[in-house]
């Protein structure tokens, strides 16, 4: 087994794991039961997509995916903050 095929198999496996994680997040997103559960699930979903971007970057050997991951890492939490603020204070911007 060459390095390339090994890498390919590894990323494929990782991708499958990530999508499985996403499925589980979605389940939590759907059933809740509390609003906090849903917010957390959404945040994790963002995280998964970030990892997905990195994995795809490795698979395709492109730097651009890395930048997408960077953006998600830097700004992905904004929705979470907004939702959390809404739950805690009843409004997003006071």
């Amino acid at each position, binding site marked *: 087994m060459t390095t390339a095929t090994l890498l390919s198999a590894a990323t494929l496996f990782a991708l499958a794991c990530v999508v499985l994680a996403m499925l589980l997040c979605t389940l939590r997103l759907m059933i809740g039961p509390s609003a906090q559960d849903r917010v957390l*699930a959404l945040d994790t979903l963002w995280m998964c997509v970030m990892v997905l971007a990195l994995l795809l970057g490795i698979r395709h050997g492109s730097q651009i995916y890395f930048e997408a991951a960077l953006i998600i890492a830097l700004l992905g939490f*904004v929705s979470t903050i907004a939702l959390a603020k809404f739950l805690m204070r009843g409004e997003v911007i006071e």
Partner: protein
Amino acid sequence: MLLASLVLLPFLGSVLAALMPQDARNRESWLAIGVAVGGLAIAAALFPQVAAGEVVRAEFAWLPAEGLDFVLRVDGLAWVFSMLVLAIGLLVVLYARYYMSPEDPVPRFFAFLLAFMGSMLGVVLSGNLVQLVVFWELTSLTSFLLIGYWHHRADARRGARMAFTVTATGGLCLMAGVLVLGHIVGSYDLDVVLAAGDQIRDHELYLPALVLVALGALTKSAQFPFHFWLPHAMAAPTPVSSYLHSATMVKAGVFLLVRLWPALAGTPEWTWIIGGAGVCTLLIGAFVAIFQHDLKGLLAYSTISHLGLITVLIGIGTPLAIVAAIFHILNHATFKASLFMAAGIIDHETGTRDLRVLRGLRHKLPITATLAIVASAAMAGVPLLNGFLSKEMFFAETLHVGGDRNWWMSYAAVAMGMFSVAYSLRFISVFFGTPAQGLPRDPHEPPRWMRFPVELLVLACLVVGVAPGVSIEPLLHLAVVATLGEDAPAYDLAVWHGFNLPLLMSVCALVGGMLLYGVLRRHFDLARRERVPLLHRLNGAQAYETTMLQLTRGAEWLLRRVGTRRLQPQLMLMMLALLLIPLLLAGAPPAWTVIPVRGFDPIFAGMWLIGAGCALAAAWMAKYHRLAALALVGGTGIVTAATFLWLSAPDLALTQLMVETVTTVLILLGLRWLPPRIESIAGPVQPPWQVWTRRTRDLALAVGGGLALAALTHAVLVHPASDTIADFFLLNALGGGGGSNVVNVLLVDFRSFDTLGEITVLAVVALTVYALLRRFRPAPESAGIPPQQRFEGDPASRQSPAEQAGSGYLLVPGIYLRLLLPFMGVIAVYFFMRGHNLPGGGFVAGLIFAVAILVQYMLAGTVWVESRLNLRPHRWLGFGLLLACTTGLGAWWFGHPFLTTHTAHVEWPLVGELHLPSAFVFDLGVFAVVVGTTMLMLVALAHQSLRAHRHPGEDLTADGQGGAEGRRI
């Protein structure tokens, strides 16, 4: 150039006049006089060429692609008419100086008047029919504005509306007529159309063209049955009535008929339509005029009747009749303008225009009385005055055309002559008898220069009447030759033709008119009659009002029947149309071809499963659990972004992620103001069967729509890819656009005009949202402070947002979010700078930047942010649009089309070679607009909380750091 300045000068003067202060009566008049004199000088300079029989033309490219040029042309007819417009304009302006009172806002008056002068000159000088219609409508518009000049008066507003509705509708008909003419001839150029008379008359579309053009001309010239607007237009200031509604604008209709005479006339249809309308107008106008009690009303109906006379002459259509028509247009303009001015003087001096009150004015106003009597004599057709000459030509023509069969034509002419003598007598009756008592004002002679225009015009009536051969003949000849060309007949303008039938008719009219007036006065109680005998049922104004009412009602009915304020039926109809119309067009659904599934990827499928599941769940939750639905929609958005990543479109993924974030914040901001669900009014557990039927139907429709779209996508995918425009872009992005990121080059270079439109729309939407939110008042149940903030056990409820972020529960996020701000800024700049070659660009960068600021808002509240950051979203918007436009315009400087990109390679110290396309600056504009739009909308929503919390007298300083008021953004 000289010709263009003739039309431009009044418009220029109009702009100048509008800019002057309210009380600049003298300066305004000097300006207007200057414009009129300048115009006359230009016209005089053109005279030698026109007199030599030349047609002076000036052409400017207008819509070259459509074969339309802006053409100005002067021949004899146009020259005589423009002289008329300018000369009467000059006198009217002088008169208006004294007529307008110091309280009237004169800049508006003179600006409109000069604009009218320019429009009228445009009509007269147009060498292109489409352009003529444009100026034609401009005269309608300025007339509307001038009639409604005293807009505090209901009658002025009503009169203005009526006049505009009638004449502008006529203008639309004229436009249609012109288009038909252009279709027949193949050109809109006046010279070409005039030369193609036979072709037009033989064409099957001749009648529609004639009817449409006639509708335009007849409405403008207040011909039966559209005459009713003119008396109502008398609510305008008298100079306007004198200028627009007797001397010039109402002549535009007959001018057009004379102008198009070579192209359209000479058929029975022409005679019946034009002549028929003219005869009706002439009799009705003259008859009704006798029974008016308002000086200006009498003159208005008399104008209608005289216009009818001109129309009859044009309808008769023989060359001699056209000569008489042009001659009468000039004569009528002189005596009627002077009469209106005299009526204005009487109104000005006595304070009333009521014929029942005014008597014996010759004692107080001797000179005005003399002038008015001479002018009325001209109107009545008394020998040795200009009205006599043209009226006699009219009688001669009716005899000529009538012959033995149409004897009634001559009788109608004599009857009209009698009526006009009668109403002229009625008009001058105000000067005779014992002086009236109890007038609103004590009359005395008007200022010298107010009377001067009347004197001049009356003098013209006399000179033309006594010595037509030397005074008017050369001018008339010019106009006649220009209209008739080789057909120009021999005519003699002498005062005395010997004893003949027309003279007998004149004498009959004079004597009969005097008798008629005497009889009416003695036995029919003329001064007391409230309504016109016989014809009072013929009320055009009432018909107009009824039509308007019916139209409004019809519109309301249609709206009730077709329109709906509910979204669901509309969506249903749209969906049905979407499904059925393609089916009807195609006949049957396309055959279903099965494409083999290639490369099925379970991982990718799993991702889509997540997306679809989230979307369905969001729809399920949307009714009662808004927050859950929002989170689920967020899930769908993420999957979409992941899909873009998977299919290697990182550009789209980036944008999608940013849009997702901003949308979530936006909806959350809005959710705050939605009223909460009231649990107590939940419906019955078992919904009735109608609801089930409706829901089933909607579900079926929705599924059908979804399947149809899926089928469409499938069809597109199955269709073999041919040479698409994408190939062009891929090939040319680097070479032509100077960038290797095709998407960005597409946005800022190839399709930058689209982008410019889009960012403009974006800015408009943002401003609209802002404007709507300024007046937003939340529902009472959601206006208060949210329950979370009222909970006393939470220490945060006693802290300001800034304190929460500084030392409260938001301490940790507070620190790192503030540290992150510069990083986010750097990322935004990074994505912006490299956008032209790699994923990024102004749009994404703008969103990133806006999100970076928004985070600060969320963290520490509006007041804290706005006391530290001076963000003005309006300016971002304005700056961005301006930058984008200026970049585009810059290309003109170098002689390239709008928005052409230029790429410069600059060698900078330290940095090295820098690739700097002008599209980069354009992209900066896009960036600014996106930042401005996002900030403006979100922050405007956020400010609602601030407003709702504000109590009277509450100190808004956030954390004691100086008087940082919640700044209005």
